């Protein structure tokens, strides 16, 4: 459960940082009758609610994956664990996902500078690259299965399929939203700032899922093992 505790510590850090700006030391009972300060945050909402909502949601997704990874490490310690080989295709898939994220970053910058002409191209590229990633993942599954690494044979396989599956589902969910945004670009009547926000949110989500994928990839490739061993020794 160390991974999830580290994740929680991160979340806790964010919470403390946020609470630190909330005048927790104030004495509200002494402020009786004071008018709200003129610089109240409410007048200038710094971020739109959807964006905050997305960050909170990413916190939930982060908890989900760090818990799964915690379970991965705990199960790994048992004797019947043989690492699953990483299909070479995963390298290509990773590159595709990076490109997809890159395309969205490009779209975000274009939208920020009000250059709407190139937006459809960027979004369409990001969308199709993400679809390509999913197809690639399914292809990787098929390769593994045909090489005899089936789901129930070994816990490493089970985790590989489950974690890639969970990640794929999240990409799929992101695709639904990205698809809507792409369609909106073509519709004439959508206000620009709404569009900009949609692109912005899609980019954030995509970067986050890319980061999750990179961590999972490191996990599957076994590069994290030495580090984990080190941690184990430190704890014991």
């Amino acid at each position, binding site marked *: 459960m160390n991974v999830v505790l580290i994740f929680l510590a991160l979340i806790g850090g964010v919470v403390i940082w946020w609470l630190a700006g909330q005048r927790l030391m104030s004495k509200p009972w002494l402020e009786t009758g004071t008018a709200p300060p003129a610089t109240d945050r409410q007048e200038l*909402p710094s971020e739109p609610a959807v964006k905050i909502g997305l960050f909170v949601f990413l916190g939930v997704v982060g908890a989900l994956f760090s818990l799964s990874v915690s379970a991965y490490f705990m199960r790994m310690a048992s004797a019947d664990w043989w690492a699953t080989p990483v299909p070479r295709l995963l390298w290509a898939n990773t590159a595709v996902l990076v490109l997809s994220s890159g395309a969205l970053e490009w779209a975000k910058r274009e939208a920020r500078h009000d250059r709407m002409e190139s937006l459809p191209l960027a979004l369409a590229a990001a969308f199709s690259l993400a679809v390509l990633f999913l197809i690639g993942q399914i292809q990787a599954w098929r390769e593994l299965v045909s090489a005899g690494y089936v789901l129930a044979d070994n816990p490493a396989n089970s*985790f590989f399929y489950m974690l890639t599956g969970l990640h794929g589902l999240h990409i799929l969910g992101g695709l639904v939203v990205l698809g809507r945004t792409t369609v909106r670009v073509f519709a004439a009547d959508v206000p620009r700032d709404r569009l900009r926000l949609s692109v912005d949110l899609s980019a954030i989500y995509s970067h986050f899922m890319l980061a999750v994928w990179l961590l999972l990839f490191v996990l599957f490739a076994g590069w994290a093992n030495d580090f984990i061993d080190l941690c184990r020794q430190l704890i014991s």
Partner: protein
Amino acid sequence: MVEIPSGSAGAVPAAEVEDVELYHPKSWWTKYVFSQDAKIIAVQYSLTAISIGLVALVLSWLMRLQLAFPGYFAFIDANHYYQFITMHGMIMVIYLLTALFLGGFGNYLIPLMLGARDMVFPYANMLSYWIYLLAVLILVAGFFVPGGPTGAGWTLYPPQAVLSGTPGGSDWGILLMLFSLIVFIIGFTMGGLNYVVTVLQGRARGMTLMRMPLTVWGIFTATVMALLAFPALFVACVMMLFDRLLGTSFFMPAIVEMGEQLQHGGGSPILFQHLFWFFGHPEVYIVALPAFGIVSDLISTHARKNIFGYRMMVWAIVVIGALSFIVWAHHMYVSGMNPAFGFFFATTTLIIAVPTAIKVYNWVLTLWRGDIHLTLPMLFALAFIVTFVNGGLTGLFLGNVVVDVPLSDTLFVVAHFHMVMGVAPILVIFGAIYHWYPKVTGRMLDDFLGHIHFWITFLGTYAIFFPMHYLGLLGMPRRYHELGDTVFVPPSANTLNVFITVMALVVGAAQIVFLFNLVWSLFKGRQAGGNPWRATTLEWQTPQTPPAHGNWGRDLPVVYRWAYDYSVPGSAEDFIPQTQPPSGGLTREVVA
């Protein structure tokens, strides 16, 4: 002396917020059924939760009947008994308490108490309810499938949960339970995002965090915890579904079932326990923190006195929320864990008692020399405090490894967590319903019926759970369908069991009075007016009662003070609403 300047002209204009795209219902269906109005969603959540809670109540009756009169009721065989236990526990903890506190009270109170028009994502909020309803239906479907619902115990420990020896283990029961939980978590996440972001972004002008009522603090912190803890249950459910349906071995060790070697091997049941309790312990506080918050508001309002140590109360809520994530393994002392871990978790568990005790002291000190009105909400709040203290004290015993190990499998544990997590939050729920029902419906609940309900429930639950501690100390095991002839259980213990069962039947029946009151008062109750309790918080200052769609007429309220200005010296009334601007442009002097 601290000088606090007030606004030069006193009142300030309402914040210039851009027009919120408020959802406008177009037909009867979208107004009352597929509504996106948080108030309607709150009522839907509450009614669904109460309905499914009644099912769990009946299940507890059946269990008690079996324990008191073993063998007398032929249809309660061992399998049914375990199914009743499982469904009772799961329904009460998740589908009733969590859903009612966060989905019910959260939806109703967060926007109203913060001066918002609605939740920030009304559509997701509506989906949240319907997905919750779906989860409840999937759960209930368990009663109607071959093999019945799962009888794995509410903790669903593998490997027994998915083996054929357990009711529903190799049938539909366990599958429906796992699916239902997964669906519930998805639905809750949608609602939870709403509650959190509304608190972050939807507050009225002047409503700083430190001016929020403690109810909102409790619900807010609990929601954040739930958003982080429920994924653990989600992962555990998904992995168990894999084990059960696809033959993986996440949790399943090599095992022989009915003389047949199963294909599983090497899995770790302890892994499931870690995941489950990583969710399960915060879950206790997900239920308790909203209760803490609500009780603080009830006590302050009905004792006409500001809450003692508001800052401390807020900090305690946050600290309890944080600590509750590092105590989960105290549910696993008997799992054979490393004693060093046991020591660690016992320590963290006992540390939680500190902020919790701070809260209890502050409630008592709020009552001290207050103008206590023994209204129904106040009675329930007082009953909560004593019940929570009683239940919490036995928690201190059980938090210690050496005490827990012999008591772990006895009725002592059952008594402990029913006091602290069953009865105590339920008392708050009742108190809160008596308190806010006038706002929801515009009418008061009947006082006489309410008193009958209160006294039977309060004294009755004590009659049930106090003797149970004693039975536990005698060594009477929990989870047993039938004891048979046991040397260490004297015949008098069985008499006590009969007594407990009779009281359980009485307390359960008393809830009919409550339900009748809910319906009867809806039509015949005394008109309440906008602010029957003379309370300060925003939900009592709405232009209409019940609040109309959009809550606040044309302008959003502006908040000038904290939520607890009761009996302020020198003021004409004994309460000053949060919306009341300071009197004139004078600079007030306050003794620091």
